[in-house]
């Protein structure tokens, strides 16, 4: 299922005086089962990138390949492609419209050709994946839920199609700490079931915890690429690209400057703690 971008460029309103080039020759390869984090300053092309991946935009130049097949080629079945790639937009709670939660989650399965029983099974599973019980939630109005609950219902609406690749745009923006933890647990669970995941976020801590690989965009180009350890190694470089490094990495940097050397690879709290433990609790004494 590898997902590739080949020298992809995209220009909004091409051919008019308002043309804006959002991506410039971006190449990218995503492996099956990978969690890819995408970071970058506002306006760097993140949203354009994920819409190209989901087949919602057609590149001005270059190709988007899924399993080696150009998804924008004339003969390609785009509906089938969209079923394989799920995209959860920022503030997905805005897309809810049905009378009940169950109906809203079923909406995406309308053209799937599944039987009603199969659909219900899918919806039940999707709601359970986001931590809701079908019996208790199914008949409620989605519009009467709290913001965080709405977002989970909206995510269930995308999960119901069982995509192989899931793309999240700023999924944790505006969530409380518990909602954030719950979301990250969901990502890990989905990934463990074999779903490839693209996470677009400004939250470096969350990406350091979840992502196998990070991509930093700047002005429509890939500026940095690598594991969280590699990308966050140079704190100054990250700052120049206008992205945060994870809090533990920033702490490690401060400690290093004050004489307690912490390796650059400690980008998560667990990593930082184990480094500090090793240093200060040698022999088990605090």
């Amino acid at each position, binding site marked *: 299922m590898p997902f590739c971008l080949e020298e992809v460029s995209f220009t*909004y*309103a*091409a*051919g*008019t*005086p*308002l043309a804006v080039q959002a991506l410039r020759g971006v190449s990218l390869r995503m492996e099956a089962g990978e969690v890819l984090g995408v970071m970058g300053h506002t306006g760097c092309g993140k949203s354009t990138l994920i*819409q190209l991946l*989901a087949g*919602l935009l057609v590149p001005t130049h270059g190709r988007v390949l899924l399993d080696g097949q150009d998804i924008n080629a004339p003969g390609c079945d785009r*509906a089938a492609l*969209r*079923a394989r*790639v*799920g*995209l959860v*937009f920022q503030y*997905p709670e*805005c*897309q*809810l*419209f049905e009378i009940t939660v169950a109906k809203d989650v079923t*909406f*995406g*399965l*309308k*053209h*799937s050709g599944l039987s009603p029983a199969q659909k219900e099974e899918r919806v039940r599973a999707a709601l359970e994946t986001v931590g809701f019980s079908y019996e208790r939630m199914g008949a409620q109005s989605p*519009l009467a839920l709290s913001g965080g609950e709405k977002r989970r219902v909206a995510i269930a*609406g*995308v999960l*119901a*199609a069982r995509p192989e690749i899931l793309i999240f745009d700023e999924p944790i923006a505006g969530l409380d700490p518990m909602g954030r933890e719950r979301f990250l647990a969901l990502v890990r669970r989905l990934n463990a079931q074999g779903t490839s995941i693209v996470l677009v976020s400004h939250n470096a801590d969350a990406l350091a915890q979840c992502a196998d690989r990070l991509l930093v965009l700047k002005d429509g180009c890939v500026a940095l690429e690598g594991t969280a350890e590699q990308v966050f190694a140079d704190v100054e470089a990250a700052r120049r690209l206008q992205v945060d490094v994870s809090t533990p990495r920033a702490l490690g940097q401060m400690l290093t400057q004050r004489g307690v050397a912490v390796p650059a690879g400690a980008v998560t709290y667990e990593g930082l703690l184990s480094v500090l433990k090793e240093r200060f609790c040698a022999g088990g004494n605090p």
Partner: protein
Amino acid sequence: MSALPAGQFFPGQSVLHALDARAKLLGFFLLLAGVVCAASLPAYAVAFAAAGALLALSRLPARAVLAPLKRLWLFFVLIFAMNALFYERGDALWSWWIFRLSKAGMAQGANVAARVALMMVLSGVLTGTTAPMEITGALNALFKPLALLGIPAQEIAMILGIAIQFIPTLLEETDTIRKAQIARGARFESRSLWRRAASLPPLVVPIFLSAFRRADDLATAMEARGYRGAANRTHRRARPLRRADWFALALCTGVCALHVVLRVCVAF
């Protein structure tokens, strides 16, 4: 979203961009009156020449301004056909069942289609060279006399201004929601009218909800910043009309007068 919405503003440095919005708006209404008067070939020659000259002066990308016309070709064909086939007066050239093709009807159809096309080009030039906020400001100024009649002119201008400002936001939001629904399996591309109507709720419900939420938020924000009704608000950049503005107005008045004269003197 590859096609630009009709009425898009293009920042620029042309003569028309530099004119005062009040002069442009008044001139626009004068030319519009002229177009409504037009009913003969010479009159349409004048009107099309004026519209073409404005389009050239504005240095707007002609393709972008004319694109809405192209998108509405079916509408033009329809109004022409309706007029040509159902017009009551004049000798019938051909008739069958309820249809009745007449020369007068065809002339009427051509009239209506040409007028709509001209109005669209003129308004395209106006909105293309004038930022939405300038248009609102101009409306505000032009509505002022209505306050004497007890009409809340300033409030109306404020409402119009807010409505105009919300258009791009709502268009963008529509685009996002449409994409979000497509990404989870909706199909809006269907050609069948029935299917297309059935696919409206997933778009319309979220957009209405968000529009109401935005309106609420905006009202709160305006009150929080001390808005107490529009009466006696002053403007940051108040300036009188300049010579160029008066000249433009005079030109538009001239074109409008010419139309009236042509209307009176020339039969179709």
